[in-house]
C-alpha cells in the first residue's frame, strides 16, 4: 500500500510552471482551511470536554455522548445542509429579511462557499475527534492534582489554563492531528463549496484537465501534509507528561455550577449540538419531506452501495483480521502491521484512487467491469483496514496474555486454534470492526468517484452529483440514508465511552 502511493508520486517526476502555479495556491488553500478548521475544532471541543468532565449542569450526561453525533455526518452532507440553510433563499436569510425589512443586497451575510466556509463545515463535523481525546485526557487527570491546585488558591479558570490544559495538551493535539488529517483528505465538501484544495485538485487534474503528472504532484503534497499530521499525532502521544493518577480519589466528583453559569453552559452545549447536528439534519429531513424526494429511484444506488460496501468491508475485515492475528504472533510483525495500516490511513482516498488509475494505465487496462471493482476494493482495503484493526486489537488486548500458551499446551494450534479460540474471542470486536468498515466505505467519495465502473453509482457518488448540479432536493434522501447508517457506529462508540465512564 505504501508502494501504491509511491507509484502515484513517482510518475509525476516532471515539473513545469503550470504545475507550480497550481501546486502552491492549492497547498496554501488547503493549509489555510486546516488552520481555521483546527481553531474551530479546538474552540468547540476543548471547553465542552472540560465542563463535561469537571462540572455538573443540566443535560451534562446527555451532551457527554450527544456531542459525538456530528461524526455521523460526512463533510459533504454537512456542506449541503448548511449551504441550503445559509443560502439567499434559505431560512436564515429569509428570516433576517423578514425581521429587518432589508433586501438581499442591503446586508452582508457569511458566505459558505469560501475557505472559512469549508473550514466551518469540516470543523463542525470533525471536532468530535478532538472532543473524545480531550475528554479522555481531562478525566484521566489525577483529581488530587486539581484539588491541590485549588487549595493553593487557583480559581476555575486558573485551574484550566495552568494545571489541566498543559497536562492534557499532548492528548488533545494528537486528536487534533487525526481530525485535521481527515479534513485534509476531504474531497466532497471542498468540491461542492468550490474551494480549490489539494483533494479537489487531484480529482480535477485527472478528470477534467487530463494532467496525470499534475495530479501526482498534488497527491504527493497532500500525502506529505497528511503524513506529517500523522507523525505529529504519534509524537504528541509519546511518553510526554507522565501522568500521576490517584487510585484513591479517581471517582469523579464534579463541582456543581451556580445556576446562571449552569444555564449558560447548557445553552452553549445545546448550541454546539444544534449547529453541528440538529439544524443540518432537521433541514435535510424537511427538504426531503417538502420536495417529495421519494420520486428518485434509490434502488440501483442502494444495490451498488450495499454490494461495494459488503465486498469492501469483507475484504478489509479479512485484512484487518490477518493483521491483528499476525501482530499477536510477533512483535516485529506487530510493528510492520502498524506501519502499513498507518500509511494507508494517512493516504487520502483521492490519492489512492489516483494510484490505482496509474497502475491501470501502466498495465494498459481499461477502467471497466470487474477490474475496476477489484481496484476499488483494493483501495478500500488500503484505506480502511486500520479502522478495522483498532477494535479487533482492543478486544485482543483485553484477553489474558497467556491464553495462547495455555491453548498450545493443550495441543491446539494453527487453523484449529483460529476457529476454536481466536474467532469466538474476537467476536465482539469483529462486530464493531465490520460495522465501522461498512459505514466508512459507504461514506467514501473520491476514490469511488474516480474508480467506479459504469452503473455502479453509490449513494455518496450520486448525492455528490446531485448536489454539485444544484439539485439539492434530490440529494437529501441519499444524504439522510448515509447519515442514518453513519449513526450506527457512532452510537456504538458513544455507548462504549459511556460504559468506560460508568465503570
Amino acid at each position: 500500500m505504501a508502494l501504491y502511493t509511491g507509484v502515484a508520486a513517482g510518475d509525476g517526476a516532471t515539473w513545469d510552471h503550470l504545475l507550480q502555479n497550481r501546486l502552491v495556491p492549492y497547498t496554501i488553500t488547503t493549509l489555510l482551511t486546516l488552520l481555521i478548521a483546527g481553531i474551530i475544532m479546538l474552540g468547540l471541543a476543548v471547553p465542552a470536554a472540560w465542563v463535561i468532565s469537571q462540572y455538573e449542569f443540566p443535560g451534562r450526561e446527555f451532551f457527554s455522548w450527544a456531542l459525538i453525533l456530528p461524526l455521523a455526518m460526512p463533510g459533504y452532507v454537512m456542506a449541503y445542509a448548511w449551504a441550503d440553510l445559509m443560502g439567499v433563499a434559505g431560512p436564515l436569510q429569509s428570516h433576517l429579511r423578514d425581521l429587518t425589512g432589508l433586501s438581499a443586497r442591503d446586508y452582508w451575510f457569511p458566505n459558505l462557499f469560501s475557505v472559512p466556509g469549508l473550514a466551518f463545515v469540516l470543523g463542525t463535523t470533525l471536532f468530535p475527534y478532538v472532543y473524545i481525546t480531550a475528554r479522555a485526557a481531562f478525566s484521566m487527570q489525577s483529581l488530587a492534582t486539581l484539588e491541590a491546585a485549588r487549595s493553593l488558591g487557583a480559581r476555575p479558570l486558573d485551574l484550566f489554563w495552568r494545571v489541566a490544559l498543559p497536562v492534557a495538551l499532548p492528548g488533545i493535539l494528537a486528536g487534533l492531528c487525526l481530525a485535521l488529517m481527515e479534513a485534509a483528505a476531504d474531497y466532497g465538501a471542498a468540491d461542492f463549496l468550490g474551494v480549490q484544495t489539494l483533494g479537489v485538485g487531484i480529482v480535477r487534474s485527472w478528470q477534467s484537465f487530463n494532467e496525470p503528472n499534475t495530479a501526482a504532484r498534488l497527491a504527493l503534497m497532500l500525502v506529505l501534509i497528511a503524513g506529517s499530521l500523522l507523525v505529529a499525532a504519534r509524537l504528541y502521544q509519546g511518553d510526554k507528561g507522565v501522568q500521576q493518577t490517584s487510585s484513591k480519589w479517581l471517582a469523579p466528583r464534579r463541582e456543581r455550577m451556580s445556576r446562571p453559569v449552569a444555564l449558560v453552559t447548557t445553552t452553549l452545549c445545546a448550541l454546539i449540538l444544534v449547529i453541528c447536528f440538529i439544524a443540518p439534519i432537521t433541514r435535510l429531513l424537511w427538504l426531503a419531506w417538502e420536495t417529495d424526494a421519494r420520486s428518485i429511484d434509490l434502488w440501483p444506488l442502494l444495490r451498488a452501495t450495499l454490494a461495494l460496501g459488503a465486498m469492501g468491508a469483507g475484504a478489509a475485515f479479512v485484512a484487518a483480521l490477518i493483521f491483528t492475528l499476525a501482530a499477536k504472533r510477533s512483535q516485529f510483525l506487530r510493528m510492520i502491521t502498524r506501519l502499513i495500516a498507518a500509511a494507508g490511513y494517512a493516504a487520502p482516498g483521492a490519492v489512492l484512487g489516483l494510484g490505482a488509475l496509474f497502475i491501470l494505465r501502466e498495465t494498459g487496462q481499461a477502467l471497466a467491469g470487474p477490474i475496476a471493482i477489484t481496484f476499488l476494493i483494493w483501495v478500500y482495503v488500503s484505506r480502511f483496514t486500520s479502522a478495522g484493526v483498532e477494535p479487533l486489537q482492543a478486544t485482543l488486548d483485553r484477553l489474558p496474555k497467556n491464553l495462547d500458551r495455555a491453548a498450545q499446551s493443550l495441543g491446539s494450534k494453527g487453523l484449529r486454534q483460529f476457529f476454536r479460540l481466536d474467532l469466538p474471542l474476537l467476536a465482539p470486536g469483529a462486530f464493531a470492526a465490520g460495522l465501522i468498515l461498512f459505514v466508512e466505505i459507504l461514506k467514501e467519495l473520491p476514490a469511488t468517484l474516480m474508480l467506479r465502473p459504469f452503473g455502479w453509482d453509490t449513494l455518496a457518488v450520486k448525492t455528490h452529483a446531485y448536489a454539485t448540479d444544484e439539485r439539492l432536493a434530490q440529494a437529501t434522501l441519499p444524504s439522510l440514508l448515509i447519515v442514518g447508517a453513519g449513526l450506527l457506529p457512532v452510537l456504538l462508540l458513544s455507548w462504549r465511552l459511556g460504559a468506560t465512564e460508568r465503570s
Partner: protein
Amino acid sequence: MTSTHPLIADQVTRAFGQVTAVQGASLELEPGKITSLIGPSGSGKTTFLRLLAGMERPDSGQILSGDTVLASATHHVPIEKRKIGLVFQDFALFPNMTVLQNVMFGLNALPKAERVGVADSWIERLGLAHRRDAYPHHLSGGEQQRTAIARALAPDPVAILLDEPFSGLDPSMRDRVREASLSAIRASRAPALLVTHDASEALIHSDTIAVIDQGAILQSGAPETLYRQPGSLAVARALGPVHKIETDQLPTDWRNTLNPKSDTLWYRPEAISLGDGLELTVSGSKLAGPITELCLNLSDAQQVYVACQPGAPLQTGDTVKATINPALFFEFASEST
C-alpha cells in the same frame, strides 16, 4: 509568620445518602502541633480531612479557623479561598512544572520578585536545592513528597492537612522524609493534621492523637494518654495490639493486684513481663525483631500473650516466671468483643 489560630471542627456531620461518613466530629488542631488522625479504613478519616479542606460541605456543625467560620450548614468558604495546605499520598504534583514552579504555584498574592525567593527558601529548608529545576517524573518518591510539602507550606497556610503522606514511600527513605517534612511543618507553626493508618507513626511523631471510628472521634489527647488510658476498646486497638482475658481465669495473685470490677479485662502484650513472679509454661514463641512474642499457659483453657525480650531463646515447654504491670490492663464498660 503563620497564623496562630487553631483549626477547629465543631460537631461536624456529613452523610452520603444513607451512609453517615462523619458523625458529630469535634477536634481542635493547635498551631505548631501535629495532630494525627487514626482509624481503620472506612472510618471517615478522609472525609473528615476533605471537610476541613473545603472539598466537602458539612450537613451540620461548623469548621472554624480561630474565630472565622469556614463552613457551616449555611456558609461555605470554597477550597481556593481557605488557604489550607494539602498533601496527598500520591503527591499530586503538577507534572508540567518544575520543583520551583510547583512551589511557586500558590504564591500569586506576592509580588513577582518575592515569589522566587520565598519558594527557594522552602526548597532549601526541605533539602531540595539541588533538584530545584527538575520535573516531578525525574524525582524520587521522597523528593516528590518533600516538594509537595514545600508547595503546601510556601503560601503560609492557616493549616496543613496531610492524607497518608508517607505510606506511599519506600520504607528505606520513609523515616528521613518524614523527619524533614514534619520538622518543617512544626517550624511553620501552622496547625497540622496527619491522617494515617500507622499507629506507630502517630505515636512517635504527633503531639496529639485523635481516634476516629464509624465517623465519630472517639478520643483525642497526648499519645501517651491514649496508649495507656484508652477510653474504649476501639481506641485501645487503634494504637496497638490488645488481648482479652476473662477475670475468673486470672491467677489469684494477679486478680488481687488488678482487683477487676468486670468479667473481662484487656491488656497490652507488654503488660506482662518476664522476671519474678508466677511460674508459667511456654506454649509458643515467635521472634519478631527486637521483641519476642510469647504465648504462656495460665491454665489448660487460658493463655496469655507476652511481648518481651527473653535474653535467651525459649522453646515450647520451657517454664518462665512472669509478672504484670497493672497500668496496661484495661476495663471497658459495655464492650463484648
